[in-house]
């Protein structure tokens, strides 16, 4: 793997992101256009759910990215607390609201699917409850990082919360195996291979790749903004 250490320096990170952002944005839009065509028009309805299955093309990638985003927060928290990376705190501030957004999309689309399929918008089973907890962990991170007058103290408190909350990630993933839940068990990442027909699986993976690009795009963009904001605040302090 290439050495990514140069990205720890905010100035160099900014030059790097300015270089990749335009092509990244172009690729995201292009893939989204193709992905929406695949998800909404080309893919077949499900034999049980009919067209309601199309909600999954947004719901499942959002769930994956909400969890990946929190893993990123925990990694950034660790690198802030252990190695004092100057960029880690800024990137954590930038990525927490993005992850929270994907988490909210996951919860809302899940409710819209649950009403016609299960007969309930919401139930308190282990999968749904642990996902709601993830959303609150995100909100806690956002609030905590902005709760102090000195931003460094907020960054450190939020980093600790990110590391504590990372325990929730395996609970979310395996909740459907460890306990009886109303939520169905894993269909893609499971022993014995995916239990989704390729005509539905391929659009799902395409949408996952698309939303992953969107996630990276938003995090880079917002990290740039955080770097600018921190510079501006430092300049004001010196003036």
């Amino acid at each position, binding site marked *: 793997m290439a050495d990514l250490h140069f990205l720890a320096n905010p100035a160099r990170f900014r030059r790097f992101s300015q270089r990749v952002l335009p092509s990244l944005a172009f690729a995201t839009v292009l893939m989204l256009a193709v992905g929406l065509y695949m998800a909404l028009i080309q893919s077949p309805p*499900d034999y049980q759910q009919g067209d309601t299955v199309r909600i999954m093309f947004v719901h499942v990638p959002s769930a994956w990215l909400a969890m990946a985003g929190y893993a990123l927060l925990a990694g950034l928290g660790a690198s802030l607390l*252990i190695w004092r990376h100057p960029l880690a705190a800024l990137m954590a501030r930038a990525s927490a609201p993005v992850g929270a957004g994907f988490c909210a999309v996951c919860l809302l689309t899940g409710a819209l699917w649950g009403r016609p399929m299960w007969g309930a918008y919401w139930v*308190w089973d282990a999968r749904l409850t642990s996902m709601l907890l993830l959303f609150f962990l995100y909100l806690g991170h956002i609030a905590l990082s902005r709760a102090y007058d000195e931003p460094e103290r907020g960054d450190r408190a939020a980093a600790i919360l990110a*590391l504590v909350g990372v325990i929730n990630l395996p609970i979310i993933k395996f909740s459907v195996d460890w*306990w009886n*839940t*109303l939520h*169905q068990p894993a269909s893609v990442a*499971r022993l014995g291979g995916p239990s989704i027909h390729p005509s539905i699986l391929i659009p799902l993976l395409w949408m996952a790749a698309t939303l992953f690009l969107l996630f990276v795009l938003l995090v880079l963009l917002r990290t740039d903004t955080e770097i600018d904001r921190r510079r501006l605040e430092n300049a004001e302090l010196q003036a």
Partner: protein
Amino acid sequence: MTPKRKRLWLVLGSVAVLGCAATLVLTALSDNIVFFYSPTQIAEKQIPPERRFRMGGLVEAGSVTKSPDGQVTRFKVTDTNKTVDVVYRGLLPDLFREGQGVVAEGSLGSDGVFAAREILAKHDENYMPPEVAKALKDSGQWKDGKK
């Protein structure tokens, strides 16, 4: 030991300790975290009548009957080991059908019949187009071997 290494072990150690604590708590509470009991668990637990809880399993094929006015549905829920009779008054969700998963909330009557107040359909992890499902059923490769 450098300060960095010390902090690394401190972070790893704290997460490991918290992980152990969470595992212990969840194991201790697992009886309350499950969303429903299976018919076998109900037989083992001797749940008293009128206590509200949720029961889950498959709707036994051929067991669904409706009252003449169509409001009361009777069916059996099975986990292939034990079976419980269920009676329910009200509208059923779209995915409710024989051979499919279902979760019913209600209580056992003194006659052993489960009076459901709410019925939720449980979806399984299989997704496929209707033609594929039909082809699988026609060729006898359906998941439970039934047509």
